[in-house]
């Protein structure tokens, strides 16, 4: 007989290997893939194919170049590719999708050591990078089924979340949201398809229910006080379903124990609601997951399982000895850190108080006259203006506040504050008898690269010479009174227009003859 195989126990394996797990995840993503093709057309499939293929390619190439064990066989790169595609809108240029794959696979995953060693979810981080870098492309949503009418003019639609945040548009019913019949990224619209996939993953024991339940449960609980319909809308909008089921549950970047998973899920839910409600981005899922990812090593320490039969004291001693994975520095118990922190806080408060007092005492009252800088700004807006003086601001209309008013020989300048996407927008509007002579934005809290573009010369120059009420058109001016909004920044454009209209109205009240 042949020689016997000798190895150490155990001599049996469960049969569940990494490729098996990844394959199950891919299978679970199929319903969402089908949904994305149904709602957004065959291009959805193309985008997914491109991200997946490039993800696999980048992983293969990187491991090859760095002379490391080849890992494409474990299918995790494919999973990342598909998940990334599901975070992109269908109209995304393919080269941007490829950049996304590069960021996810090479920067977030491979540079840190490959599978099991990334500090944050690769697909989520890539989505955030793309969102910050190519804001316009990443927010170019299309209506579902628009691909069936290619001749019709492409109308950008607002996502449900954008509408919730105040954008113009109708909110689809919770049922529509659940099925996925709404604008958004490829895989994130259909909560139904994602839940099907989630059920499969639970059945196959690929994921445990802790994180999705804690995440969705927290969001549900926090939005329940606003009514069941509102809660349902919240739950089924945006990337929450895909985030809670597929992204937050990524093994490497989520806690190991059940307790830890629950804490993680609750944290994600809390942050998502906070960002959606109070943040300047309509979608909070990506950022919440990323932020919680960073806390995972600590959550793991706090929720470490207790070895069987270890007494309380021993556990405390071990808590101080046990180090963060891979790091030799021990974590000190809370007590040791409290006292120095408290002392530091007191010192800071005392010094800050002393500084504040000193400032109060030594501050010199500013002259109430107009400064050089201000006058030059005003003159830029009303070129012929001279003898500038500040006047009493006229009454403001409802949706804008005229905070200051300056008069000169050639016209007036009004400082208007109005509500825009990310907060207040402050503008200076110069008006002469010929109409608007200049607009400049002095303060904006809108998204850089998007809403902030409403402060650009190119957009603002449209207002020059306007006299009557101005209206906003999204893509093309159809009426005489139209100006064209900044692509992807309709709300900000509207805000500016509202402000200018308010200034025009106020000016006509004053008589408008430059007095």
């Amino acid at each position, binding site marked *: 007989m042949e020689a*016997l*195989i000798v190895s150490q126990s155990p*001599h049996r*394996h469960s049969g569940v290997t990494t490729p098996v797990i990844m394959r199950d995840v891919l299978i679970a993503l199929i319903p969402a893939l089908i949904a994305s093709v149904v709602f957004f057309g065959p291009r959805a499939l193309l985008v997914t194919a491109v991200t997946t293929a490039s993800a696999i390619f980048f992983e293969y190439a990187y491991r090859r170049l760095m002379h490391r064990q080849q890992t494409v066989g474990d299918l995790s790169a494919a999973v990342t590719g598909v998940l990334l595609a599901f975070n992109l809108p269908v109209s995304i240029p393919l080269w941007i999708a490829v950049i996304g794959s590069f960021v996810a696979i090479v920067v977030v995953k491979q540079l840190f050591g490959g599978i099991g060693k990334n500090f944050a979810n690769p697909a989520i981080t890539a989505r955030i990078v793309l969102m910050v870098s190519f804001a316009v492309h990443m927010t170019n949503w299309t209506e579902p089924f628009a691909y069936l009418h290619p001749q019709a003019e492409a109308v950008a639609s607002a996502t449900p979340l954008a509408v919730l945040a105040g954008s113009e548009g109708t909110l689809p019913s919770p049922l529509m949201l659940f099925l996925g019949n709404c604008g958004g990224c490829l895989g994130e619209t259909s909560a139904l398809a994602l839940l099907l996939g989630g059920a499969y993953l639970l059945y196959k024991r690929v994921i445990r229910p802790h994180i999705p339940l804690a995440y969705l449960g927290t969001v549900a609980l926090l939005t329940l006080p606003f009514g069941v319909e509102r809660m349902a809308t919240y739950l089924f909008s945006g990337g929450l379903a895909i985030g809670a089921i597929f992204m937050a549950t990524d093994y490497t970047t989520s806690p190991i124990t059940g307790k830890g998973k629950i804490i993680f899920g609750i944290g994600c839910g809390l942050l998502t609601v906070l960002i959606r409600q109070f943040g300047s981005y309509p979608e909070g899922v990506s950022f919440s997951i990323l932020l919680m990812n960073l806390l995972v090593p600590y959550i793991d320490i706090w929720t470490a*399982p207790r*070895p069987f*039969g270890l007494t309380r004291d021993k556990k405390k001693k071990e808590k101080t*000895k046990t180090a963060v994975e891979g790091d030799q520095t021990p974590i000190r118990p809370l007590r040791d850190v409290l006292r120095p922190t408290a002392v530091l806080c007191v010192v800071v408060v005392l010094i800050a108080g002393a500084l504040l007092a000193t400032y109060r005492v030594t501050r010199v009252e500013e002259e109430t006259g107009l400064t050089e800088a201000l006058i030059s700004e005003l003159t830029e807006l009303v070129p012929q203006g001279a003898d500038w003086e500040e006047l009493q601001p006229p009454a403001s209309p409802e949706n804008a506040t005229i905070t200051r008013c300056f008069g000169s020989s050639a016209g007036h300048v009004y400082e208007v504050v109005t509500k825009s996407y990310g907060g207040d927008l402050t503008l200076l509007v110069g008006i002469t008898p010929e109409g608007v002579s200049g607009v400049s934005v002095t303060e904006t809290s809108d998204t850089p690269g998007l809403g902030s573009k409403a402060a650009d010369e190119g957009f603002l120059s449209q207002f020059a010479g306007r006299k009557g009420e101005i209206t906003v058109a999204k893509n093309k001016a159809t009426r005489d009174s139209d100006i064209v909004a900044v692509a992807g920044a309709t709300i900000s454009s509207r805000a500016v227009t509202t402000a200018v209209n308010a200034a025009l109205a106020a000016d006509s009240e004053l008589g408008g003859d430059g007095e």
Partner: protein
Amino acid sequence: MSLLNGKRINGVTVRHDKNTKNAVTTPIPLPQRVTIPMQQHMGVPCKPLVEVGDRVLVGQKIGDTEHLFAAPVHSSVSGEVEALTEIVLPGGKRSQAVVIHADGKQEEFPHKTPTITTAQDFFTAVRRSGLVGLGGAGFPAHMKLAYKDVERLDTLVVNAAECEPYITSDYRTCIESAEDVFDGIEAVMHFLGLTHCFIGIEKNKPEAIEKLGKICKADSRIRVVPLPARYPQGAEKVLIYQTTGRTVRAGSLPADSGVMMQNVSSIAFLADYLRRGRPLIERFITVDGTAVERPGNYSVPVGTSIREVLEYCGGFEKATQILSGGPMMGSAVADPEMPVTKTCNALLAFTEPEDFALSATDCIRCGRCTAACPMGLRPGMLEDAYDKRDTAQLRALSVTLCVGCGSCSYVCPAGRPLSQKNVLAKDLLRKEGN
């Protein structure tokens, strides 16, 4: 961690493969010669008491030592001592051995039923029987019974869990020798002054549960506790917790918590010994596996070569992997000429190992190992610590609590040798002085 009495423990669910549960224990034909090792137990090895050419009888003592921490060795056949040699046992240990050529007559050594009046007599008798833990551990039974603080002991836990796949020999004991189990329990409880007894048994053995329940009704102090069939239900600390609710502290013995644990076959043997005085010379083992043509439960004289047993059961030629014990904790046999010893409870022969094609890939931090560990350890971190030879970290992570059940390796999707590294880690700590 684990929840009390019948609830889930960590650990893993394995395929039971109890194919031989209805196979009645039958004897194999007498081998021509037996090789009886001097060390078939944990502790000090015995020294041979016979010489080449001596005639020995069945049950005659052929090896012993003055040390208490040892179990004497007896001949399983009658015949002539052929040689004194040294062999390598499954598991890698080297041991002296006595080779006896069987004459086929099986003449029995005159056994004496032990007379026992005190607890001390009991210990002496048990030692004389050569009994070692028949669950596979090989701990000399009398050492457990000789716990220094006998007053502290109050509970007997009988381990009938048999959580390893394939193995059904304990189950057959429950079915075929239920009265012996009862008598054995009575004896132990009597001589040690115990007040309770729990029989821990997995739910996948309903007939045994029923039979034991019926027989033990006679004594209300005995309770049969059916437990979920989950591996490693039979691990000592796990079973004690599941049946009595007591947690054996890290670094302590079960006896420190007042518990005495014995394997059910050990108990049954004890009853038989107290009745007949016949020492431990044969084992009832399960023979199974994909290579075996006639799987079943067989009574095998100690010292029979593994090859002979497998040849009798058919399929020896096809085997590429032979295990002594179960697939989770058993040892791989390198040389089939090695003998069946007192600690062997199963022989498994496979045409192809069950986990053949697995090679280790990167850890994906899935946490399955941590969820599986019945001792609440974190095998993923233990592996990291061992790879760095960081003994301080290993100690901080309590690697010494590892019972070697193998659940972590079983469940790891990356195929990482977690359980194996824990063994090395414990060794490393031992070398460093623990």
